[in-house]
């Protein structure tokens, strides 16, 4: 008889223990705190849409308190935030943005249907954090194009930014094809500078002074 048959109880206990161990192992490796809810493909399709933007002119209603459904998150560091930020904004440093407490908070905000707008100095600075939050499933997060820089520029007349398109990303500011050829008016201009050089001759002494 095999040793395992001599001790059936011990064998069974060991087998069950081993199986439980494997099951626990399988369960625990597949449970990270944060998981992506959007596939990379879906992310690529959604990032271009205008519904992702919270426009600067919409900040007016936020600042004067009329908009009660939106929160503003400044993702820059505390020092820069202290130097100047959009009134009413909360400072949530980008790295802190995905810690446990903030994620719980974002989830409850999402449930309540509150929009969260993230901004940085520029749209570029906030782009990464915004994209990450969207991929984690927070579809109530928008981004402020132009960032704090543009807000600062326009803060005395935010409504005017409605007609300004210069701060929106992706717009070509030049006709690249034209500007990169060497034909016609695109050559480096011939610089002709006419400098007028006035040569003044000093007045010859009027006559000989003194004696001959």
């Amino acid at each position, binding site marked *: 008889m095999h040793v395992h048959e001599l001790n059936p109880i011990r064998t069974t206990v060991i087998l069950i223990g081993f199986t439980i161990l494997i099951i626990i192992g399988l369960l625990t490796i597949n449970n990270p705190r944060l998981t992506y809810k959007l596939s990379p493909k879906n992310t690529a399709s959604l990032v271009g849409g205008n519904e992702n933007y919270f426009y600067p002119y919409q900040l007016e209603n936020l600042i004067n308190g009329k908009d009660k459904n939106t929160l503003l998150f400044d993702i820059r560091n505390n020092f820069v935030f202290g130097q100047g930020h959009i009134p009413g904004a909360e400072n949530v440093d980008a790295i802190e943005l995905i810690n446990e407490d903030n994620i719980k908070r974002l989830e409850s905000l999402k449930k309540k249907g509150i929009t969260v707008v993230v901004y940085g100095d520029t749209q570029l600075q906030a782009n990464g954090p915004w994209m990450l939050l969207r991929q984690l499933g927070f579809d109530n997060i928008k981004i402020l194009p132009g960032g704090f820089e543009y807000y600062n520029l326009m803060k005395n007349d935010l409504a005017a930014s409605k007609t300004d398109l210069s701060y929106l990303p992706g717009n070509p500011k030049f006709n*690249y094809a034209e500007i*990169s050829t060497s034909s016609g008016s695109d050559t480096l201009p011939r610089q002709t500078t006419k400098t007028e050089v006035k040569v003044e*001759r000093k007045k010859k002494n009027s006559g000989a002074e003194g004696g001959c």
Partner: protein
Amino acid sequence: MNRKYIFLAFLLIALGAGLLILPTRSVMKQIDPEKLMIEIMQPTRYVTTDQVAGMIIENDPTIRLVDVRPMNEYAAFSLPGSVSIPLDSIVTPTFIDILKENGMKVIFYDNDDIISDQAWVIARRLGYKNIYVMEGGLNEWVSTIIQPILPPETAPSQEFDLYNQRKGASLYFTGAKIESNDIKAEVKVSRKKKSGAEGGC
């Protein structure tokens, strides 16, 4: 030995061997959200237009410029040696191979840098490294390389060096002929009127 145990042992060995010969996953493992956030906060992914211009001029064989704009914009104009991978196609298998090239530095660009940055985030999430974003995009390319701005006279000499570098790059990329600066100096000679002799000898 008992036949049962021989059979069990054989089964386990067969399973083990099966695991060994399983094909390695061709899909790279995505990185965790926390890790991605840390990577996002690094500024090391940005390269300047000057750096890109330098690499193109030096014929750096390790760069791969990727235009993430729509195909029609790429067709109208693109940087020399660049390939077109519009943002929404970035995850398709055909293009993913370009990101995988060993030893190549992939540099995303668009009209600005937002779409490039978005492409970067997605590619980084998929696990690709050696990916970069050209800061400022083509708008910056024109303002710095094609049409560099002459620094004011009071600027430090490094700015003038940079300007001259950019002028050289501009000639390279536009194929413009070198125009000389003609300085025509009109010399006005004004002679003061001679007045009569004052006083006497």
